[in-house]
């Protein structure tokens, strides 16, 4: 509900915005004034997060993309622990599964972002929505690219599995990994375009 004041104030906005608001208010079955007030009140809430509303919307869209790609939210500690139990017995199978997931995800990104540079898109997604990665850096080098990921929370097993996942993505989007370095919480991959 809008804040309770009967007084109104006028603010200047672009005329096309007014037209869009009118359309949206009609669609919602609300009066223009009520709709606008509710909307402004919610828009002001983004102040609670200390981030611009555009960034919040971008993040929401990114999360929707991840959800549509088949990702879910789960308990990090539980995942770390379960992987540590399974890894010693089924290391090879797990790496195969993570690699396959990477290939699938790379293909998914290519389908979703046909006219964009997939490598840049992927690096952005990694840095903004792979929560456990504290740092993601993609650098162009003479011979190709270097992807560097740093995490303060990933276990060794999950770091290794993430490396397989990243290799899957990189291979599926037309690159080949030339060199990899993986220690607990840090992955460095050097890769270049595949030669046909």
């Amino acid at each position: 509900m809008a804040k309770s004041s009967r007084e109104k104030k006028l603010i200047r906005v672009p005329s096309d915005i007014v037209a869009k608001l009118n359309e949206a208010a009609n669609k919602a079955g609300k009066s223009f004034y009520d709709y606008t007030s509710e909307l402004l009140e919610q828009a002001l809430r983004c102040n609670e997060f200390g981030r611009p509303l555009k960034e919040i919307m971008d993040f929401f869209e990114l999360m929707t993309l991840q959800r549509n790609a088949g990702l879910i939210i789960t308990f990090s500690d539980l995942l770390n622990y379960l992987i540590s139990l399974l890894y010693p017995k089924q290391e090879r199978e797990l790496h195969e599964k993570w690699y396959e997931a990477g290939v699938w995800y790379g293909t998914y990104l290519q389908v979703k972002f046909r006219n964009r540079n997939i490598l840049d898109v992927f690096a952005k997604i990694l840095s903004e929505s792979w929560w456990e990665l504290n740092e993601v850096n993609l650098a162009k080098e003479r011979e190709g690219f270097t992807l560097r990921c740093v995490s303060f929370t990933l276990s060794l097993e999950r770091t290794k599995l993430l490396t397989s996942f990243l290799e899957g993505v990189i291979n599926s989007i037309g690159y080949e990994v030339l060199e990899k370095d993986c220690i607990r919480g840090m992955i460095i991959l050097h890769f270049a375009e595949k030669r046909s």
Partner: protein
Amino acid sequence: MNSSKRKMLAANELLVNELVKIAERKGRVLYDFTNELITQAIRADKMGLTLKEVLDERGIVEEAKRSGFTLVFKRLWYEVLDRLYEGSEREWLIEEWRETGRWYGKFSYSRSPEDPLRALENGIRTVMWDIEDFEVTEEEDLISLRCISAGFSEAYTSLLSTFFKGALDALGYELVDEELSKGIITLKFRKKE
């Protein structure tokens, strides 16, 4: 953003005052700031959402991030759980899920001590993306929990049900009835004496 044609918009005085304050604090021109806010709100509307839904979800996701949740591919997660469930670790796995449930129950209480059940329901609906239908209803002294998802494996159905039992246990409820089939969890609880 500049537009050659401008119109005046009547809005609630308190809201406008608030807008002015925030715009000033951010060193922004009110016209541009308002324009940006409304543009994003319309963007949400086009996605079939209200801004309130977007902001509520952001709040819960932020909290999930801070509270040690992570993103994982659903099929990899199920694969790991199925493999462990079929192996010798089943009992341990069940206990681990119960404990995680208890933690989540307490987490829900800490988020909303006045209505932890609603906090639990809203949190699960927002955070657990693989659940298609989730409802917690209160009828007299009984709490009914229903959780449905066609994609759940048998192992995951069982583990998730254990998680819910742990969560409700932490909130002071005991199980009185349980029905489980692959992808469908129905639990009934009542307040512990």
